[in-house]
């Protein structure tokens, strides 16, 4: 392989890391609750906003390293505050109702959150660059990359592996998997599925907000971020197979590499790349790379 492709791959993976954060929470929430959360992108945007606000505040108080902490503090804060609130007040009443309604309820939430952000944070872009400045740079293939970008890739891998391990090994993970597989059975085994729902939704919110928070040092946070993000998340989640964490990871890599290849060879097609990949994958595998669906019992 020519060394000219190295930056392409590095860029693709760095892009994939951010895309993965966007999609994984969406796919997780779908797998547990069977709800396609249109407001997911808004949590991403919120995560970005809050982490900048907290980050700047902490950097001003305790220095840049403390600013880094904001990247984790803010998603936790958002998840704890909004996750249970939204699950209990809105989503709970939509379980088992038609998809059109579920999607619309989250669309309504999306509209509200979009304007709420505008009202709270105004319309000027927010940004913080301390995290990427203190981590320095690395040269790969003659091109300067921020160590922060490379760490993001590492973080994405950690989150993917961590989620997998959590679902497989921990108590709460096992309970979530059981509820996902069979909610009724789970209840008969003594699992409080409503608490699992709150938890899983909050975890989804956390992942979305974490994605936003981690992206915030490298992107500008401005109104409209949420609506851009959510369609990308849909595409990636669908490519991977809705509800599939490994699928989301693979899809993110696929989309990331396609996007960066497009910028190198056909820049005009960069924005279409995720959707073209999605159409191609869904035409061959209608339920995504890792998805499947059974026959109806008659």
């Amino acid at each position: 392989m020519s060394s000219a492709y190295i930056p392409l791959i590095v860029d693709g993976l760095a892009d994939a890391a951010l895309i993965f954060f966007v999609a994984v929470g969406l796919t997780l929430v779908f797998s547990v609750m069977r709800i396609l959360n249109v407001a997911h992108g808004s949590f991403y945007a919120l995560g970005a906003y809050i982490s900048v606000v907290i980050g700047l505040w902490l950097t001003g108080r305790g220095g840049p390293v403390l600013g880094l902490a904001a990247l984790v503090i803010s998603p936790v804060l958002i998840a704890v505050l909004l996750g249970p609130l939204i699950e209990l007040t809105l989503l709970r009443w939509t379980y088992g109702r038609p998809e059109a309604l579920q999607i619309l309820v989250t669309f309504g939430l999306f509209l509200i959150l979009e304007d709420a952000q505008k009202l709270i944070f105004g319309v000027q872009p927010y940004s913080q660059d301390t995290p990427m400045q203190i981590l320095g740079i690395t040269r790969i293939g003659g091109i300067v990359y921020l160590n922060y970008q490379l760490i993001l890739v590492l973080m994405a891998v950690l989150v993917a592996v961590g989620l997998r391990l959590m679902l497989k090994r921990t108590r709460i993970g096992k309970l979530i998997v059981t509820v996902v597989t069979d909610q009724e059975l789970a209840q008969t085994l003594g699992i409080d599925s409503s608490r699992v729902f709150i938890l899983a939704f909050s975890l989804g919110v956390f992942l979305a907000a974490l994605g936003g928070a981690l992206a915030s040092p490298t992107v500008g946070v401005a109104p409209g971020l949420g609506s851009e993000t959510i369609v990308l998340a849909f595409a990636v989640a669908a490519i991977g197979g809705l509800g599939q964490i490994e699928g989301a990871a693979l899809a993110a890599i696929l989309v990331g590499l396609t996007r960066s290849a497009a910028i190198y060879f056909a820049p005009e097609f960069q924005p279409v790349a995720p959707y073209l990949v999605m159409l191609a994958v869904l035409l061959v595998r209608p339920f995504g790379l890792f998805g499947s669906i059974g026959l109806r019992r008659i």
Partner: protein
Amino acid sequence: MKHLRSMAALAFVAAALNPAYAQTGKPAEIGMGVFTFTSGPAAAYGMPGRNAAELVIEKINASGGIGGVKIKPIFVDEGQGTDGVVAEFRRLAADSNNQAMIAALSSGNCLALAPVAEQLKMPTFMWNCDTHQLFLKDRYQYVYRTNSSTVPEFIASVLYLLSVNPNIKTVAIINPDYAFGRDAGLIFKETLKALRPNVEVVAELYPKLGSPSFNTEISRLAATQPDVIFSNLWGADLENFVRQAAPRQLFERSKVILALGESVLQRVGTLLPDGVIIGVIGDGWWKSPHAQANAQAKDFIETYRKRFNEYPVFPSFKMANTLYAVKAIYEKALATNKNRWPTREDLIAAAKNLKTETLTGSLALREDNDGLVDQIVGATVKDSAHPFPVMGQMVRYPASLLTPPVGTDPIAWIGKLKPDMLNTLPKPGAYK
């Protein structure tokens, strides 16, 4: 029957909602639609415009308004999308209290609104429409551009570049993907071709307006290693680009031209090394000798800084200058009419061939309704008085030398530019 009655009631309510009918003589106030982005990534550029409008209108009203009538601005957010903007324009135009429109920021909205303004016979002053396509094919009676167009703006960038770096070989372009960015790319390339035919364009990137991340584009630019990177990104896009590109040392490897760079200097300027070429597309630089010599401008700058906690950027001046120009047009019309309140037709007649002083220089409206404004270009330099770099090595190119004459095709005109043109123009650093 019941239906009829409810219909009548509705009609009554509607009539009650309807604003007062057309007045003769002096109105109670001048309603004025002001169109700019107050939401979305473009708001980073649109808000300074809105801030300036608020401030200038306050000042005009405080000093008695125009001919004794106060201005009442109605701000319209262009962020709602073109159809919403057009709908709002129509709604405002239907209200006879509204006598002029200050529209719009994005070239897409300008191109959409111009024919509507013409239809509705609504005097409309384009405060920020730079695309030269505005008057390229269509002739308007009611639409004026109170600022310069892309043609002089980006010819100026090339002229400055060639003055400071005469021996460049390769250039790359990264512009937003719409008329303004595409026009700028074309003008930049055509001008280079005319003045330095052997310069090669090695990459042209047109990321979508409002992209949050340019990281892959930055890698591609870094991999290509051009002598020069030209960009007319603006608003949040430009901020993001600078934030993402500066730590990756893009500004150190290539000479970078940020044609709209002045608007973000106060926000991200510290990330830029010295010597990055910075433009204001026009003459709206708050520290320019003209502005500093103008008492009204100094007052404006000071008030602006106090209220909004930053210095006015060039979009603020575009808006402020437009409003003062509109005031001048009203005053000219009043004078011509011997103080009879001008109709819309009087207003546009007065605008024709207007010449007026602005806060940062002068504005001339030509017979094709286009505006003539000088172009200031400079390069970043640290300034001990401010925590951000300012423009140094400035040059002020006269509008007349950079603007194609009325009725000529601008691109063809650029093609005829001669390399020795550079010798006849003022040099970087000449504007002090």
